[in-house]
């Protein structure tokens, strides 16, 4: 196909996808493919957060817990009436660590993120971005395919083209225009999906915008090309492990288990689908209050609480499964216990001056003005992939490779130093010998390691 035909094809596709979301579920009767719309059977049960489970729920919320939450609600409603007062400021921290009553999350989250301020400063902006997206967004196909599979077990998202699915699609499309450096990156559908469980469409858009660009959260650096913030936070995470849990770190290293392999979703979507949803919301409450250091401390807390169990697992798949799957299904500790430990971790890390890896460098923050329209180039309009890596990507790639090779080298050294005491056991552990292959773009000089 020539370029014109490709352009026409891309714009037709965009229009077709947009049309379906605009018409919505009710007007698409008979036009939704069966595979897009699985039937949920009657015996499925919905939990208090809207997730539909395969089996009858065994754990009903205990009545005394409900009573406590009702009592808390009263206090929170009162506090909402005098949000700016000194008394509120004094109580807020303690109350949020106890958990925001679920019925009030919609209000409190907006307050913590200052959604109303940014919204009133930008009247009409959301609609403008959505309109631009309809004409220009080059991320529509990816967003469409992710909306179709995000939180499908949740009552809001279970039906194809349901109201909330449409909102999720709109928010992500609009944001892809608002922040032209990030556009849409996989993972953001999880963030927006959670926000939309509590907010309407426009509020969720602005909440997402704040999570990415406000320095307190600075998630822009996680999603932008090359993932610079991810690298920086993973290094910091490793530092914490080395200092506080060296044995566990060694255990991971023995199996070639880099932190990136088990913790990506912790950082990218703040523990969504990595811990039970009730606990995830508690962590989000605190994250919205205290910002990015909460993620660092929670990552530490998870490993601290489960260190003993993980040390007993002698296989990479068992460890990864435990951290990614088992802990999502059943964390093994009451939410309150975890939050108590999270708070202790934050204090502990602060004392060791390891609570915060430092403010984001400019490369992790938006460089271009947000909300300013930039026409995409032809290649992205057609949906063509870049032939070569950009400089940022090359750098990210080199960092990733070096991380891996350094871990392998460390392990080799470890083997040498332990060869007297450790029997054949280590022999089977993988460390692909870093020097057996030459890679064209990475050399293993020691000064390169210093940027790691």
């Amino acid at each position: 196909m020539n370029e014109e035909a490709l352009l026409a094809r891309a714009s037709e596709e965009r229009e077709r996808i947009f049309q379906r979301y605009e018409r919505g579920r009710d007007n698409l009767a008979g036009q939704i493919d069966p595979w897009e719309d699985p039937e949920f059977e009657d015996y499925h049960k919905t939990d208090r957060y809207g997730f539909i489970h395969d089996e009858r729920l065994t754990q009903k919320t205990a009545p005394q817990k409900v009573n406590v939450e009702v009592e808390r609600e009263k206090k929170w409603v009162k506090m909402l009436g005098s949000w700016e007062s000194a008394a509120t400021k004094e109580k807020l921290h303690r109350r949020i660590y106890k958990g925001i009553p679920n019925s009030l999350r919609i209000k409190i989250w907006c307050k913590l993120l200052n959604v109303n301020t940014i919204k009133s400063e930008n009247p009409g902006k959301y609609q403008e971005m959505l309109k631009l997206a309809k004409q220009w967004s080059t991320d529509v196909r990816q967003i469409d395919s992710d909306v179709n599979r995000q939180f499908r077990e949740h009552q809001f998202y279970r039906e194809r083209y349901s109201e909330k699915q449409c909102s999720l699609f709109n928010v992500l499309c609009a944001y892809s225009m608002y922040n032209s450096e990030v556009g849409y990156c996989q993972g953001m559908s999880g963030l927006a999906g959670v926000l939309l469980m509590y907010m309407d469409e426009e509020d969720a858009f602005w909440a997402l915008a704040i999570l990415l660009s406000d320095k307190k959260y600075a998630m822009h650096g996680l999603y932008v090309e090359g993932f610079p913030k991810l690298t920086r936070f993973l290094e910091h995470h490793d530092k914490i492990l080395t200092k506080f849990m060296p044995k566990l770190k060694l255990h991971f290293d023995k199996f070639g288990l880099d932190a990136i392999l088990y913790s990506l979703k912790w950082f990218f979507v703040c523990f969504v689908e990595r811990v039970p949803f009730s606990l995830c919301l508690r962590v989000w409450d605190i994250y919205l209050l205290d910002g990015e250091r909460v993620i660092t401390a929670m990552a530490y807390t998870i490993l601290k609480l489960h260190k003993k169990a993980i040390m007993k697992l002698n296989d990479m798949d068992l460890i990864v499964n435990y951290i990614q799957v088992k802990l999502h299904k059943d964390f093994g500790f009451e939410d309150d216990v975890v939050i108590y430990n999270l708070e202790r971790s934050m204090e502990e890390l602060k004392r060791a001056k390891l609570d915060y890896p430092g403010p984001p460098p400019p490369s992790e923050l938006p460089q271009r003005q947000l909300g300013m329209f930039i026409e995409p180039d032809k290649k992205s309009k057609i949906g063509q992939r870049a032939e070569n890596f950009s400089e940022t990507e090359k750098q990210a790639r080199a960092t990733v490779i070096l991380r891996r090779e350094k871990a392998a080298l460390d392990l080799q050294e470890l083997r040498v130093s332990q060869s007297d005491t450790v029997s054949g056991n280590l022999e089977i552990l993988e460390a692909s010998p870093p020097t057996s292959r030459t890679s064209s773009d990475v050399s293993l000089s020691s000064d390169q390691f210093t940027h790691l």
Partner: protein
Amino acid sequence: MATNRSGAAQRPNGAPQTKVCQFKLVLLGESAVGKSSLVLRFVKGQFHEYQESTIGAAFLTQTLCLDDTTVKFEIWDTAGQERYHSLAPMYYRGAQAAIVVYDITNQDTFGRAKNWVKELQRQASPSIVIALAGNKSDLAAKRMVEFEEAQAYADENGLLFMETSAKTAMNVNDIFLAIANKLPKSESVGGGAAGGARRLNDADAPRSSSCCK
């Protein structure tokens, strides 16, 4: 040749212990071509119409019994969005096998698959076994990539090739099996060559996974 679903290395008929080889396998390909679905079908025998999108990568294992060898695959299933491409070396470095997946109903994904093959040929281990999977073969009515075209490309590049369907399970076990058969089952323990399998001693053979599954 049956897939050993339990993940145990012990052969059910009580035959003498065979050698156990462990291989690292990575799945690459454009977003939404069905990488995670292929793995889910192979490892758990299931299919989810709305398989959630993979952020970063997912990790699973599965064991196959060949005549005289038990092959344990450590499978890294990667995210398809281009943005995540720069993290891919993390997963394919040191891999002995790769499955590059495209969607037979989408020509662009085939072009993308070719780029992945090129990258693996340049950057991965020289002895890596690469298989090309044309997935969603149950949607043959919407086919945009001809079987012969893909077969010719695979032949030129020395790739294993099959059209698969994670939905109907067609050729899913077969493609993993074909890879297992092609991989060298070297005798050397903890071998230095990047392409070699890790031979596990009997005592170290992977235990059946009793928890966390």
